[in-house]
């Protein structure tokens, strides 16, 4: 049934949001920032997960959510104190709930033993602290699908023996309250009539004269005869629904000879003013929590209320972004044509174009802002990861996040998760000490890992810092020397030593733990970040901890590039990879081997790569001293000197895919369209350097040497 499937999809989406709210709320409570509304929100999240789960028959999920919800309800009502241990337990319970939900989605399996153990832990809490409430909780344990929940009205009547099958006599007197709650005697009588042939007689005797009639008042009562064969429970069920507001007297004919007792209505119920007074009395108790809720919600939802939102398909936004990209290119083309036509800069055309350029930039920024998302969605996944790593390493960790509302283009948000995961793993696994080590070092047993996001000079910066032991520099250096990554007599600054951990194949752990040892080293992290036009570095203070700093462009739709020429070709080099540009003196270039040469830069030797040759566009390299060298940092921190004919300038370019209509091209990251309307290729500098490296391995000289 596709409509139900669609609803199920909505349910899962909603659950993802609810689980995030749940975790955020619990984290706020953990940090001591929560209040009554936080507990309410946490309760509601679990409650809603449970409500939907029941509709789809996710029984395991319902059962666990129910136990969880019960504890939260205890907390909500103040019967259970939200102390730190309990909140930590709740956080683990939320992880189990997440797993159960994943399993319901058909993604991943559940460790049933773990879920059961957690449920037992939760149950223990409520048993211990709220034993008195247990029966009420148990009553709600397995809600029947069509249960009519109002408690049946217990009436003190003698149980008729089965042999006596006289007709039922039912005295029915709805109170004013019953009418006020939407009940209708006619409906009740109709229900009775469905059970069998009834005879009903309406008693108008209480009806006053018209002048004295109060429209809201209940005056009528009925005397109903129901066939004796009708089951008593069937009759009572009809009135379960109405409860005390419509008292009934039900008896076999033989016993119901007397008139109904005169005071069926509780005193005061027949008095409208008393009723109003009662309702108003109950106001402070019942309405004020709601009013408080509304007040709190106003503050909390201020943004939401002030700026209504709409949901728009991502494809529409993507298309808009593409179109604006084209607008930017067109505008650049137009500007270039006008400049070429020799119009004065002060001409009205040129001035109009300046304004157009301004507007175009603003449109581009605004459109990019539509697709911008807070990094929250990624940050929210991290507390669980940290708990798991902490659990498996036996370390005590507190995660502090900052700047989770920092926005960045969706294309970037999606790709932050992996590097952050690795940096956090590394920080806990390698950075933090065990509780014993920490205490011995005069620190608290619990380590702190801080995950922060911020904007800095048009880029997003992610910092992961720990207050652990810091990098053991002598050890790092020793490993690097042993692995032949640096020469034993290399002179390295502290910073340079710290950054050795990004070299391919480097691992500081003396034994490969099951956390960091998943085949992904920091070199891979660094490469993937560079692939996004980002950079990563580490700084460390021995005994005080380390900080990873990762910076990425705010979008993958545009790129800051250096436009260069190689022969008659125009190319774009990503600015982030370029360390500096220089014009080498003839003496700085030395041949090394038959075909390769190196550039001497401040005493070091850097391999020279002629772009035109590397791309197969010419047979002989140009003389580097007649061109320009881009000194770049490639993966693993290695440097290379890229020789180009000339630098045309720096420009922000719109990234265009080559793969959409063609295919990947070696050493080319993507393409862009320049002001003259022609396509220019964006270089993949890492691939360029790598291809040269493999080529040189093939050359006889190095083949012998290796």
């Amino acid at each position, binding site marked *: 049934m596709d*409509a*139900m499937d*669609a*609803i199920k999809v*909505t*349910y899962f*989406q*909603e659950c993802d949001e609810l689980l995030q709210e749940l975790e955020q709320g619990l984290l706020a409570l953990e940090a001591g920032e929560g209040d009554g509304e936080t507990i*309410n*929100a946490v*309760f*509601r999240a679990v*409650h*809603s997960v*449970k*409500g*939907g789960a*029941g*509709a789809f028959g996710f029984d395991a999920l319902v059962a666990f959510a129910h136990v969880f919800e019960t504890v939260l309800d205890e907390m909500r009502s103040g019967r259970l104190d939200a102390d730190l241990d309990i909140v930590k337990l709740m956080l683990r319970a939320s992880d189990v709930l997440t797993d159960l939900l994943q399993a319901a989605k058909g993604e991943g399996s559940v460790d049933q033993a773990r879920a059961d153990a957690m449920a037992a832990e939760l149950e223990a809490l409520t048993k211990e602290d709220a034993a008195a409430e247990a029966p*009420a*909780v148990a*009553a*709600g344990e397995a*809600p*029947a*699908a*069509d*249960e*009519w*929940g*109002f*408690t049946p009205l217990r009436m003190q009547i003698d149980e008729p023996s089965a042999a006596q099958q006289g007709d039922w006599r039912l005295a029915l007197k709805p109170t004013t309250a019953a*009418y*006020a*709650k*939407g*009940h*209708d005697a*006619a*409906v009740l009588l*109709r*229900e009775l009539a469905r059970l069998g042939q009834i005879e009903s007689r309406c008693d108008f005797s209480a009806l006053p004269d018209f002048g004295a009639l109060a429209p*809201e008042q209940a005056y009528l009562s009925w005397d109903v005869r129901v066939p004796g064969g009708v089951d008593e429970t069937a009759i009572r069920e009809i009135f379960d*629904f109405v*409860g*005390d*507001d419509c008292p009934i007297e039900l008896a076999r004919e033989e016993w119901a000879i007397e008139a109904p007792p005169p005071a069926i209505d509780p005193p005061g119920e027949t008095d409208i003013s008393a009723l109003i007074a009662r*309702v108003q009395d*109950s*106001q402070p108790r*019942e*309405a004020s*929590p*709601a*009013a408080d*809720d*509304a007040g709190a*919600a106003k503050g909390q*939802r201020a943004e939401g209320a002030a700026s209504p939102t709409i949901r728009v398909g991502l494809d529409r936004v993507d298309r808009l972004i593409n179109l604006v990209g084209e607008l930017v290119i067109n505008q650049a083309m137009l500007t270039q044509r006008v400049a070429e036509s020799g119009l004065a800069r002060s001409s009205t055309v040129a001035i109009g174009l300046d304004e157009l350029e301004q507007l175009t930039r603003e449109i581009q920024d605004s459109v990019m802002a539509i697709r911008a998302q807070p990094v929250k969605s990624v940050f929210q996944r991290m507390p669980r990861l940290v708990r798991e790593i902490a659990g498996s390493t036996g370390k005590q960790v507190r995660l502090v996040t900052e700047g989770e509302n920092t926005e960045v283009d969706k294309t970037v948000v999606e790709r932050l998760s992996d590097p952050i995961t690795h940096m956090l793993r590394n920080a806990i696994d390698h950075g933090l000490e065990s509780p014993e080590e920490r205490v011995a070092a005069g620190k608290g047993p619990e380590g702190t890992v801080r995950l922060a996001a911020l904007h800095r000079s048009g880029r997003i910066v992610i910092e992961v810092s720990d207050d652990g032991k810091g990098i053991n520099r002598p050890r790092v250096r020793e490993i690097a020397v042993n692995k032949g990554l640096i020469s034993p007599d290399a002179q390295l600054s502290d910073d340079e030593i710290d950054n050795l951990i990004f070299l391919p194949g480097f691992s500081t752990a003396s034994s490969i733990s099951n956390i960091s040892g998943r085949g992904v080293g920091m070199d891979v992290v660094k490469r993937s970040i560079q692939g996004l036009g980002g950079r990563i570095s580490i700084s460390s203070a021995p005994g005080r901890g380390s900080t990873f700093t990762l910076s990425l462009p705010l979008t993958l739709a545009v790129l800051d590039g250096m436009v260069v020429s190689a022969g008659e070709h125009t190319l774009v080099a990503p600015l982030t990879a370029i360390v500096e540009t220089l014009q080498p003196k003839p003496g700085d270039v030395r041949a090394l081997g038959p075909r390769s040469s190196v550039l001497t830069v401040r005493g070091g030797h850097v391999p020279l790569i002629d772009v035109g040759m590397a791309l197969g566009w010419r047979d002989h390299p140009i003389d580097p001293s007649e061109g320009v060298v881009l000194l770049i940092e490639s993966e693993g921190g290695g440097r290379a000197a890229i020789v180009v004919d000339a630098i045309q300038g720096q420009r922000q370019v719109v990234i265009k895919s080559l793969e959409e209509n063609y295919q990947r091209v070696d050493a080319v990251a993507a393409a862009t369209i320049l002001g003259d309307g022609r396509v220019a290729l964006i270089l993949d500098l890492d691939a360029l350097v790598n291809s040269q490296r493999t080529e040189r391995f093939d050359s006889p000289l190095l083949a012998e040497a290796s």
Partner: protein
Amino acid sequence: MSKTILTVDDSRMMREMLLKVLSEAGFNVVQAEDGVAGLEALAAAAPDVIITDINMPRMDGYGFIDGVRREGRHRATPILVLSTESSAEKKQRAREAGATGWIVKPFKAESLIEAIRRVSS
């Protein structure tokens, strides 16, 4: 004339579910996502039956029911509570606020329709 039902529930999924079940049964459906929105919706729609959740942000079901009962036009409109809760205490509280009936989630489509027919004449 088909009857109009106002549903008040903060869960998008539950609203979709109710919309499907009720519109298939031939009811007009008006929806609101919490008590405050429910009271607002009441001004425009004249529902024959109201179905509300209890646990909602901003204004919960009790506050909403109470609000409906105090708003003159709908003093007598049947209100069914649709909730995963089933404790006697909570039902009592809903009844005091003025609820007409209580249905425990998850619900069967037929029982919900049946309940609506029972309370609406």
